[in-house]
């Protein structure tokens, strides 16, 4: 018998590269074209962000005397937010990649050192938890460089430090998961970690909001100029790596090479140290956590042998038994999954911060408040689309490998999609109603704008949910390991781009009746042109029919012809 050397990280990474290469090789011409089109749309989105950031940075740069201070304060805040988001994302992603990946059972029984497995899985966690958030930084940095005229050296410095920065943030999240699962190795711990992580994210989100970043452009929010300058000059979290990156970038912008290298070394050194410590620690603690996490949680549930709640409701509403049964199953599975509870916590935080922000808008003029209320439809539409990306779009794919149960059952795919729609639409409409109604109340909007904005928001929510289900069916992913892979997939991007375009077009169309309404308020005679109103109604009907029918029908057809495993 010969004893082969243990495979190392290189081998594991080569198998990843082979998988990636094979995925590319197996793409059909249609898939190449489709991916190219969606990538182009992604670049378009980044260009849009660049345009927005550029305008903002240029505006701040134009502020006399303190323009640069403002810009670097904003940069520090942005990087701190990025760091926090990546750390929490790393925590959530590593729970799946390190403890619940499909291939772990194979890797763990193979003669692979535990540290090699950890390295492989932690690199995956770092990548998946940071790439999207990191990508959003690029247009901001590009805008910063262009407005400041910093040149290529600035870009080089940013890209040199971006890797260590994101790796350090994600490593912090991974370290937390590693330690907590070592101390409490059970699937219950996994649930607890999810809740803690989401609570932290909600807290970070709330803290960022309550830090009142609007002070940057509103000096009057602080009592005296000295306070304002103190606020601008003060480091934003001086011991956080985001501050080191800010200092490194501001140093290179100011041509101070020594300061740049000092901060760069601090950031890169800290990232290397933390990751090395993590790998060292993993050799001792990773397997204990992995082993414990494989145990299923035990709970004794009563056999459901009485009439189902959904069945009774369906009887009252005249809905089918199939729909009620599917709804019952979805409700049970949804509320037992702690990942969903944590997201609900996040949404509650989001609603609170949203309404707080609306309340803080310093407006005295009734007309401006009404305009803001109308524009709020767009912002709330964006929020609904974002929630849809998390809850609605993955609904079909989350059937996962149990898809065969429904696929082979005597239930039509129309019913499956309708049930998914209903399950998502009810809470989404409640969120939309809360946001719309309370915004109108807080802004004391006039009756016409209130009705128009609220009914538009509810209509948009219904359609966005249908788009989520439609696109989810059009791009089903039944074999994924976690929901983040569904959200960040090509289909998720298409859904998001389509729903945001839909929100944009709706606002554009409805801006006409809003204009006429304001003309009337300002006393203009015959402000209402009913031909334009009729045209708007037609345009709204056409847009909604298109947004509703196209993805829904294409999705249903795709699902009927689905041939995946």
């Amino acid at each position, binding site marked *: 018998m010969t004893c082969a050397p243990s495979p190392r990280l290189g081998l594991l990474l080569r198998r990843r590269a082979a998988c990636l290469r094979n995925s590319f090789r197996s793409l059909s011409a249609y898939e190449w074209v489709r991916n190219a089109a969606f990538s182009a749309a992604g670049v378009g989105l980044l260009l849009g962000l660049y345009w927005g950031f550029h305008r903002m940075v240029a505006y701040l740069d134009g502020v006399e005397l303190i323009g640069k201070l403002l810009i670097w304060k904003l940069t520090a805040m942005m990087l701190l937010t990025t760091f926090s988001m990546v750390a929490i994302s790393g925590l959530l992603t590593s729970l799946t990649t390190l403890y619940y990946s499909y291939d772990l059972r194979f890797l763990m029984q193979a003669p692979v050192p535990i540290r090699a497995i950890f390295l492989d899985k932690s690199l995956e966690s770092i990548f998946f938890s940071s790439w999207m958030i990191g990508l959003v930084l690029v247009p901001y940095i590009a805008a910063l460089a262009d407005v400041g005229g910093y040149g290529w050296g600035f870009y080089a410095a940013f890209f040199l430090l971006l890797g260590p920065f994101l790796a350090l943030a994600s490593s912090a999240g991974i370290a937390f998961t590693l330690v907590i699962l070592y101390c409490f190795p059970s699937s219950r711990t996994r649930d607890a970690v999810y809740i803690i992580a989401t609570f932290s994210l909600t807290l970070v989100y709330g803290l960022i909001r309550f830090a009142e970043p609007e002070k940057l452009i509103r000096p009057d929010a602080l009592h005296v100029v000295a306070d304002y300058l103190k606020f601008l000059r003060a480091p934003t979290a001086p011991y956080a790596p985001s501050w080191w990156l800010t200092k490194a970038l501001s140093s290179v912008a100011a041509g101070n090479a020594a300061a740049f290298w000092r901060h760069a070394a601090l950031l890169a050194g800290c990232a290397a140290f933390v990751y090395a410590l993590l790998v060292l620690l993993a050799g001792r603690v990773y397997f204990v956590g992995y082993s414990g996490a494989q145990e299923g949680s035990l*709970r004794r549930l009563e*056999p459901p042998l009485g*009439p189902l709640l959904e069945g009774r409701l369906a009887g009252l509403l005249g809905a089918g038994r199939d729909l009620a049964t599917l709804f019952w199953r979805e409700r049970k599975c949804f509320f037992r999954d702690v990942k969903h509870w944590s997201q609900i916590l996040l949404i509650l935080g989001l609603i609170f911060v949203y309404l707080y922000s609306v309340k803080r808008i310093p407006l005295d003029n009734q007309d401006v408040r009404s305009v803001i209320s109308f524009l709020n439809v767009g912002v709330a539409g964006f929020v609904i689309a974002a929630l849809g990306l998390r809850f609605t779009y993955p609904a079909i794919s989350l059937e996962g490998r*149990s898809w065969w149960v429904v696929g082979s059952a*005597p239930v039509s795919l129309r019913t499956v999609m309708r049930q998914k729609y209903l399950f998502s639409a009810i809470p989404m409409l409640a969120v939309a109603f809360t946001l719309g109604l309370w915004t109108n109340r807080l802004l004391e909007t006039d009756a016409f704008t209130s009705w128009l904005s609220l009914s538009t928001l509810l209509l948009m929510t219904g359609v966005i949910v249908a788009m989520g289900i439609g696109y989810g069916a059009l791009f089903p992913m039944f074999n994924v390991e976690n929901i983040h892979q569904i959200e960040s997939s090509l289909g998720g991007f298409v859904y998001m781009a389509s729903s945001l375009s839909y929100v944009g077009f709706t606002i554009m169309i409805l801006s006409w009746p809003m204009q006429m309404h304001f003309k009337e308020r300002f006393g203009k005679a015959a402000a209402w042109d009913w031909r334009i109103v009729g045209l708007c109604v037609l345009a709204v009907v056409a847009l909604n029919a298109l947004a509703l029918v196209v993805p829904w029908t294409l999705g249903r057809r795709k699902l009927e012809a689905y041939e995946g495993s």
Partner: protein
Amino acid sequence: MIRISGLVKRFGGLEAVKKLDLHVPAGEIFGFLGPNGAGKTTTVKLLCGLLKPTEGSLSVAGFDVGSRTLEAKRSLGLVPDEPFVYPKLSGAEYLRFIGELYGVPLPEQRRRIPELLEMFELGRWGGELVESYSHGMRQKLVIAGVLLHQPKVLLLDEPMVGLDPKSARMAKEILLTLSKRGTTIFMCTHILEIAEKLCHRIGIMIAGSLVALGTLPELRAQASREGSDLEDVFLSLTGGTEYAALLKNL
């Protein structure tokens, strides 16, 4: 009960099932054998409507799977090769879900769900989430699920994998009982002993084509292997002896 005519299934350039014609009457236990990748699971997926055929037609219990899909599915019970069921449902809830989907009356569900759980020694586990079940327990739960709605046709893809000896024996007896009652059983298996003991007829598929079909004596005659067991017949038809040279180097 099952009628397959001119069935072709292509995945891109790969022809997984080639012009398959087959009729399995009511009450027959039909064994579907073949090496890995022969097209057996694809055929099962086509029969239960999880895949659409490229050409040809299938009917189950007199219903065309393509045009009267829901009626065909209502007559079917599927036990797939990988028994994935909703991890966040308990075993009893999964059975309830199946009972509702297949229109089993509530009083019957109340009676049969505890019975089936007990029968498969899952009574103690009925209130636990499926995520805490072993592979064999999930397999038993899925079998209990198809027995709950008493289909006219049972499609079984490797039903004995993961079952303990006692459960495997019980599963075999259940299949024989159901067959006597008129249920058609279409079973893919690699366990030739089971096929030999249970199946009335056996079909052997290789690379998408049905190369042999008949009772065990008929297959022996086709393979010119009188008096030999199914394993010898299977290997002589599928070609399985050319690894002798490889064994020497093992």
